[in-house]
């Protein structure tokens, strides 16, 4: 009994836990989180460790000495905001299933839970495309109006060759066309139709994601503070973070 107790104690010593969160975590939605267990014991493997993080467990049957292993668990977080996972519980019935020995391990993994997106119709209300006007971006594309005619460079797609002009000039001419685009969108979070603040944040999160997917630069407006519109992925995450931590400081 004494020996097994000692072995159980030894088994839980010198283990470290790191938790790797995905980039996007939404309030109340299941997310796959990676738990990495590091066995820092120089001589002994770590046996049959279970790691509990926020109520879910990952099982590590055997981690070699001075080795590491990873496992994934589905986690759901509630409440938006910047959060910190401070500790995980490591426990094990090893060596003999008489007692379960447990120990909490400092993890210190910060993560942000974004507001859960809630569907809403895009800004400008329901209306026909014509009514809202149409715009083209400054980037080149295929779907828009012809913006210029220039000489064929050899790398242009054949469908862009302007056959009529080419015939007239005696050399190949190609059309340059604009990509269809929509107006940069700035969402005034506080005036969204959700009512309560949390509702508005959820609507805004949905709108941000939808706008970026639709290739539309998007920004945010909280009262007087404005985050300028842009279209990159990092920008989108920044916007979602703004929504997540709004009002926290």
């Amino acid at each position, binding site marked *: 009994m*004494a*020996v*097994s107790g000692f*072995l159980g104690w030894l088994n839980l010593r010198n283990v470290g836990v790191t938790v790797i969160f995905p980039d996007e975590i939404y309030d109340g939605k299941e997310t796959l989180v990676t738990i990495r267990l590091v066995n820092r014991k120089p001589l*002994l*493997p770590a*046996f*049959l460790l*279970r790691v509990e993080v926020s109520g879910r467990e990952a*099982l590590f*049957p*055997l981690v*070699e000495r001075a080795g590491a292993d990873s496992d994934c668990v589905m986690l759901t977080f509630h409440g938006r905001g910047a*959060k*910190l996972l*401070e*500790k995980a519980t490591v426990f094990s*019935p*090893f*060596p*003999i*299933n008489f007692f379960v020995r447990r120990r*909490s391990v*400092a993890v*210190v993994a*910060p993560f942000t839970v974004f507001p859960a997106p809630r569907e809403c119709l895009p800004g400008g209300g329901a209306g026909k495309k014509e009514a809202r006007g149409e715009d083209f971006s400054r980037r080149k594309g295929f779907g828009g109006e012809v913006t210029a005619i220039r000489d064929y460079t050899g790398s242009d797609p054949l469908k862009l060759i302007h056959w009529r002009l080419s015939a007239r000039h005696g050399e190949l001419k190609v059309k340059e066309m604009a990509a269809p685009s929509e107006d940069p969108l700035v969402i005034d979070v506080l005036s969204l139709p959700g009512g309560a603040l949390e509702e508005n944040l959820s609507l805004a999160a949905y709108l941000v994601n939808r706008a970026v997917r639709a290739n539309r630069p998007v920004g945010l407006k909280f009262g007087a503070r404005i985050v300028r519109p842009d279209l990159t992925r990092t920008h989108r995450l920044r916007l979602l973070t703004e929504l997540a931590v709004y009002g926290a400081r």
Partner: protein
Amino acid sequence: MVPVKAVLDILALLAALLGMAPLFPYLGRMPWLLFPAAVLWAVVASWKRFPPLRGWRATVLTGIFFLYYALQFSRDNVVEPAANLLAVLLSIRLAGEKIPRNYLQIYALSLFALATSTAFTLSGAFLVYLALLLLTIAVSLVLLTFFTVDSRLSLTRRGMRRVASVAAAMPAASVPLILLFFIILPRPQFPLWNFLSPSGDRTTGLGDRVEPGSSASVAEVATPALRARSSKLPRENLYWRGVVLNVLQGNAWVRGDVVEEEPRPPGNAVLVRQTVFPEATASPYLVALDTPWSMNGVRLEKSFDLVFRKKGAPGGRLNYDTASSVQGVIRTKAGIDREFYLRLPERLSPRILALGKSIGQRGGTDSGRLSLLEGYFHSAGFRYAKRDLPRSADPLDEFLFEKKAGNCEFFASSFAVLLRAAGVPSRLVGGYYGGEYNELGGYYLVSESMAHAWVEVFLEGAGWVRRDPSRFAAGFGGEGTFRHQGLLKKARLMVDSLSYFWNQAVITYDLDKQLRLFNAAGSAIRNLSFPSGLRQFMPVLLVAVLALAGFLFRKRRRWDSREERMVRNFLRLVARRYPHITVTPSTGLLELAELTGDPHVRRFADVRYGALYRDRKLTESERKLLQGIMRDVKQARGTSRRV
């Protein structure tokens, strides 16, 4: 990948086999058949994935067998039904479904089976079985833990080896503890489990009847009869006295009432001191080197013909110290009852009677008659034999005048009869002759095959004198030794010394030895002596050791990290400040900040995690900041209390 379940199944089988192996020869017929069948079934079933015996069927079977054996229980018959029941239960479990609880039952039943085997036989081999079984169970228990967590778990071969080796290290590591507990745990004066050992379990051993001609051959039984710790002695002195047979009834020598004839102690003759460890036997006679004068360590009865009889029930483990003189002579204080020692049976072969009479007439004195008889045995061409012994109605006659071949019983018996017929008082002594000296253990091993009988002749002026007529036979030279020679003999002796140490150190370890050990340890500590120079330095040394210990302790405290201590203190402060919130050492700082809504706590958490998250220590200014926060919290607490 190796499935944990497969390994568990194999180990469960192994455990069952190890537990049952020593018990198996003592089982009744049903478990004797059932157990191998169950083992076979278990192997085939796990190979071919047969559905196991499960649920109510196993329960009903268990119940039936339990009833069957429970009816056989009685006060005198405890062990056998228990052993059979254990075997049957183990068989059912082996054939049955394998869930964690059933595995545990298999281990427990195997251990019980092994423990039960000690009621039938106690040998050093038990230790080997026990060690192997404990090892198997330790590894199994660890694997079972894996199995309980996830029954479909598989490990790599390498991983499995790791698990097994660490698990096997467990019993190895517990050996020192086991030894410690064995030595210090209190031990009762009397064996607790004696009632479990059937009293007549061993029929071999010294009988109180010698009847030549009762069987055609003598079995060669090599089981040990006794071991005696002793210095090495000349071979001709190795007579181990057991019982004296003084009455001849027909062909049989038996022990009659001993006629009072107090022996005279050997005076200043050198005594050989030995400690005798007899094997468990049904015989009440305590064997010792001839001629034993005193015996200590066991409750006994000593008769005047120096036969020592154990008081109380026979059997059980014991040992005793003896002191013997080796001249082979017992002097008496007064004379003896000559008539008693000359008595002959009514029916005696006329040829024997005639031979005795003639020797009596020709001899003149008793010693003259003895030499004549010895001359007769020497010259008549007797041969020592253990097979094809005389078995006619008058076996002694047949032995002396026709076959001229027999074992010690014939020699001793006829020698004593002829002496009595010649008018010389004589009696038979039963015991052992010979022994193999074990240099390793420093003891003699005497086996049952060395059982022997010889004659004591009473000579006026000298006393009872030992005479061994078998010595006159051709072919007696090899008696009293082991048949095997060379390597085999060495191996045998080696194994036997293990058995000897086991007996000595474990089986006969009792309260007395325990107390002696404690006394010895106590006096060793009291008399601990240091060189005189060291004694002066002792205080200095002591101070140095204490200082080092203190330094290490402080250092360890520092390793515990000032920051962690700070956090602990802070948590305690907050807990006092907000008594309605339960704060445990595992409460996170941010969690606490949220719970209390206290900006102090929030600031503290930010600073602390700011450092921790960047994996660096707190800077001096940060530490000061935290201390400031703690002061603030303390003051806030003070004000709130005043309000």
